[in-house]
């Protein structure tokens, strides 16, 4: 049977049963307007539904009854027993028709003119006329009833029925109508079979049932826990049975709460249609996986966030047709909703093929809203920048439309989703579109949690946030590395920041496990992945999250608490709270953000690095291009002048510098030295061991705040400190060569003229840090800018330079555009401009010359850079 019809039958049977009662009550209290209103409403609904489903007979009867009731309601007729009887009679007719409908799925043939005529007459005259024609028992119903074993009431019996009716004094005036009523008795004798198949139950009843099942699951867990420690008891079999039944019960109750997600989407096509008119955009809404089921409660909670996201996609994401055509896309924008199950969770993707997030605008807006300083904003990864749209009061829409752009919403969306233990991820590609990925638990009632132990205390971590478990320590491949005391884990070529649960929660230091082994729970919150260090990991348990006591609400670290199988109370950790407490999700999101950035090819050019070791700590690396030679000196040949180690090298004294003050040069044997030369001067950096030379796509993942280090990166799969050469150069030079003419060297390496002002434009902090000291040691007065815009800002501010060195590949305005801007600017028109890039294909060089670059040099060709600069500035001077 058609679902719609089934629902109609169920609903109408219920309504009719209710009407019977209400009408009898109305007869007793004829002047109760509320009662009358209620009756009228029910009949009206029946009529409406019948009309909608195309059931003309039912509709006609219901309509006539409604007419009578309407007049009564309006005070034109008074409630008399005959009126009630007449209405009841028409209800019985409806029931009859319904029972046939239920059998055959079609309305019986025939008509109800007699009844309708009487109803209409009553509505007109206010009294019940005698039937004008012979009573017409519902004709088609009869044979069907025969099949079902019901006998149509023979005409001879009508008298008897009349008798029954007549026993009630009120029925007297309608005695003539008895034949019609007769059939109704037959119908009344059985309930609608369909109606019996489904029951309407209040949501609170189900909620209550669910809560109790949750408790039952907990108790079952407790019993199972006890069982584990007690072998060979008689309880094993019944407990297993209990276990099964409980699981099935849980599943069954869950099923009653499950609804397809399509229910939450039902209003979206209309919404999108209206939006497309309002915004003058062509929008195609695709909905995939609408049948995916999830908990009713969860469904209710995500309805609004989903609507909001779709609205946002339509308004902000998709372009107007003209822009789409210009961008070479189809005029009709597409919004796709996709829902599917994934490991006990439900994933909902809302994506559009619009213009993507305008990162520059968001950056600028973040600065304007004082969410970040200008330099901070520029240093943030794209992923971090995207997170700003989740901040309250943040909107980049140029104007507020009636649809969105008021800057409320995205923060609410995130809050609402996180409230139910879900996560929102954001992916965006400029020009290609934006996608929100929402991951939510199937149900809120019972969650799966990982039980861990730190310093002798147990905690639960919701499984939804846990990505994997890593064992670090003796005998394991994974090792915890430390940079400036902050722990990190190398995990598949990524540096994973770690937080220690012990430190975070201020646990009892005396109980801290003294094991060499540490377990790391790799946890994801939004796009931020981090590791929680714990002492032990137990199994996962199904838990019911109970809120913490009000006096503990201020402690942000807990999502709730629960009772474990062994009866003890356990605190449930809130991964969001931990992420926030571990230095802020936005701050530490760099780990992931960096990956995204390098994938996008915006950063991380390939650099040849020399990897070496010194001291105990992490391997260190320096770009090979900066090193003049690798030497090994005899430990015995190291001399000390003024308390500092020097070595005679090519007829001069070469200062030796160590990475850390406590490091002692070898007295015996070979001592590897990295020689950095600059003109006639050179210095040696003492190292323990030269490990390797590798070519890597270098990306500084964690900027160091220690002098002497640029930051840390993954080199050859290991977390490696990148050293700041400039720091060691200046460490050696001012003391040892301070008296010498700093720029007077006439050696082979070309020197810059003293005091020439140079502007270095490069988006990568690494290259800025690398080149700036190099160029300053070559005698230039270096100013750095991290973007073309910033450089042009300096121009506007009235700064002048003798030469500008610019990167080509930069986010926002690239080097070519920058060059064109410089060339069209009166102030800097004549300033020599040197391109510094890894893009050295002839076509690129041609293009560079065409837009006005004075010269074009491959990145990290140090000699060439200095030579060119020297020539350029001389030429200009």
């Amino acid at each position: 049977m058609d679902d719609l019809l089934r629902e109609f039958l169920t609903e109408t049977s219920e309504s009719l049963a209710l009407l019977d009662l209400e009408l009898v009550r109305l007869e007793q209290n004829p002047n109760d307007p509320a009662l009358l209103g209620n009756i009228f409403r029910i009949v009206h609904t029946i009529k409406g539904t019948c009309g909608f489903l195309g059931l003309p007979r039912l509709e006609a009867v219901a309509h006539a009854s409604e007419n009578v009731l309407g007049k009564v309601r309006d005070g034109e007729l008074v409630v008399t027993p005959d009126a009630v009887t007449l209405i009841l009679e028409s209800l019985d007719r409806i029931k009859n028709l319904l029972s046939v409908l239920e059998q055959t799925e079609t309305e019986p043939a025939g008509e109800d003119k007699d009844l309708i005529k009487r109803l209409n007459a009553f509505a007109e005259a206010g009294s019940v006329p005698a039937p004008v024609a012979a009573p017409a028992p519902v004709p088609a119903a009869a044979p069907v009833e025969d099949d079902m074993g019901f006998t149509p009431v023979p005409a001879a019996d009508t008298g008897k029925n009349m008798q029954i009716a007549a026993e009630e004094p009120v029925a007297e005036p309608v005695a003539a109508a008895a034949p019609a009523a007769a059939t109704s008795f037959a119908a009344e004798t059985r309930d609608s079979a369909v109606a019996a198949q489904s029951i309407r139950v209040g949501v609170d009843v189900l909620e209550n049932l669910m809560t109790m099942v949750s408790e039952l699951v907990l108790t079952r867990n407790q019993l199972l826990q006890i069982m584990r420690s007690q072998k060979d008891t008689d309880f094993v079999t019944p407990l297993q049975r209990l276990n099964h039944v409980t699981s099935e019960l849980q599943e069954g109750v869950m099923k009653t709460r499950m609804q397809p997600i399509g229910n939450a989407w039902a209003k979206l096509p209309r919404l999108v249609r209206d939006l497309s008119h309002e915004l003058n955009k062509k929008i195609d809404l695709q909905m995939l996986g609408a049948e995916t089921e999830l908990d009713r409660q969860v469904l209710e909670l995500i309805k609004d966030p989903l609507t909001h996201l779709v609205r946002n996609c339509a308004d902000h994401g998709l372009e107007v047709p003209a822009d789409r055509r210009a961008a070479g896309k189809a005029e009709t924008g597409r919004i796709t909703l996709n829902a599917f199950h994934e490991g006990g969770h439900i994933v909902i993707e809302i994506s559009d093929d619009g213009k993507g997030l305008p990162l520059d605008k968001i950056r600028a807006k973040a600065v304007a809203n004082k969410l970040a300083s200008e330099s901070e904003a520029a240093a943030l990864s794209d992923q971090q920048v995207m997170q700003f749209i989740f901040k309250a009061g943040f909107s980049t829409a140029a104007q507020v439309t009636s649809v969105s752009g008021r800057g409320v919403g995205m923060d609410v969306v995130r809050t609402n989703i996180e409230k139910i233990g879900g996560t929102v991820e954001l992916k965006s590609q400029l020009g290609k579109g934006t996608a929100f990925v929402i991951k939510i638990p199937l149900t809120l009632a019972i969650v799966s949690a990982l039980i861990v132990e730190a310093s002798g205390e147990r905690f639960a971590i919701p499984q939804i946030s846990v990505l994997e478990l890593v064992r670090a320590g003796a005998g394991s491949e994974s090792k915890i590395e430390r940079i400036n005391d902050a722990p990190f884990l190398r995990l598949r070529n990524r540096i994973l920041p770690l937080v220690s649960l012990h430190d975070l929660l201020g646990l009892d230091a005396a109980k801290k496990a003294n094991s060499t082994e540490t377990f790391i729970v790799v946890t994801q919150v939004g796009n931020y992945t981090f590791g929680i260090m714990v002492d032990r990991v137990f199994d996962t348990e199904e838990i019911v999250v109970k809120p913490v006591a009000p006096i503990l609400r201020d402690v942000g670290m807990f999502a709730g608490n629960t009772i474990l199988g062994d009866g003890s109370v356990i605190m449930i950790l809130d991964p969001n709270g931990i992420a926030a407490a571990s230095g802020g999700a936005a701050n530490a999101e760099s780990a992931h953000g960096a990956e995204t950035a390098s994938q996008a090819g915006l950063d991380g050019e390939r650099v040849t690095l020399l990897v070496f070791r010194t001291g105990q700590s992490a391997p260190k690396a320096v770009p090979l291009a900066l090193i003049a030679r690798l030497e090994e000196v005899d430990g015995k040949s190291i001399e000390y002048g003024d308390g500092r180690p020097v070595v005679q090298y090519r007829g001069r004294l070469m200062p030796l510098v160590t990475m850390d003050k406590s490091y002692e040069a070898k007295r015996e044997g070979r001592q590897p030295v990295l020689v950095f030369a600059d003109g006639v001067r050179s210095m040696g950096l003492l190292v323990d061991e030269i490990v390797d030379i590798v070519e890597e796509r270098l990306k500084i993942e964690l900027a160091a705040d220690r002098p002497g280090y640029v930051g840390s990166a993954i080199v050859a799969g290991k977390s490696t400190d990148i050293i700041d050469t400039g720091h060691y150069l200046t460490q050696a030079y001012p003391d040892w060569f301070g008296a010498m003419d700093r720029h007077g060297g006439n050696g082979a390496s070309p020197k810059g003229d003293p005091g020439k002002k140079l502007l270095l434009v490069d988006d990568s902090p690494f290259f800025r840090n690398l080149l700036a000291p190099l160029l300053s040691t070559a005698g230039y007065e270096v100013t750095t800018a991290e973007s073309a815009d910033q450089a042009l800002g300096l121009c506007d501010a009235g700064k002048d330079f003798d030469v500008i060195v610019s990167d080509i590949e930069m986010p926002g305005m690239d080097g070519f555009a920058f060059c064109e801007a410089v060339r069209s600017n009166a102030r800097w028109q004549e300033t020599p401009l040197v391109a510094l890039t890894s893009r050295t294909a002839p076509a690129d060089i041609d293009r560079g010359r065409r837009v006005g670059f004075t010269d074009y040099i491959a990145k990290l060709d140090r000699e060439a850079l200095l030579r060119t600069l020297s020539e350029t500035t001389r030429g200009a001077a």
Partner: protein
Amino acid sequence: MNDKLTHAAGAASDFVTMTIADQLFGIPVLAVQDVLGPQRITRIPLAPREVAGALNLRGRIVTAIDVRSRLNLPARTADSQGMSVVVDHKGELYSLIVDAVGEVMSLPADAFERNPATLDPRWREVSGGIYRLQGKLLVVLEVERLLNMRRAEAA
């Protein structure tokens, strides 16, 4: 809670008595849900100092408050585990850990006195008044104020 106290001004009222550091305290008997012996308590990191932890009372999670700590008294010695009085406050259960729980006493209204002005402010904050008993004084604990930690921190 409060109407029980006003009621106390009339005839006699019943109190569950308890001792903390040899001082006698009382809580109106109707406010008390349970009296527990030593319990396994799960410590709650980062919680206010007075919160001893959480415990499982027949499937309900009860927050345990160390009344000693709340009253600025030194911690219990390791050998005495203490007992708990469970009270309901706005639908949540709290277990007040005291040194020992004594008998239920019916105290006449005319033995009731307001808080003496010299009482330590931290004590006065949680005390609803004092009963003069033979040979000693009983301090009436005001559960609501006892559980208001924020005020305690401010004080």
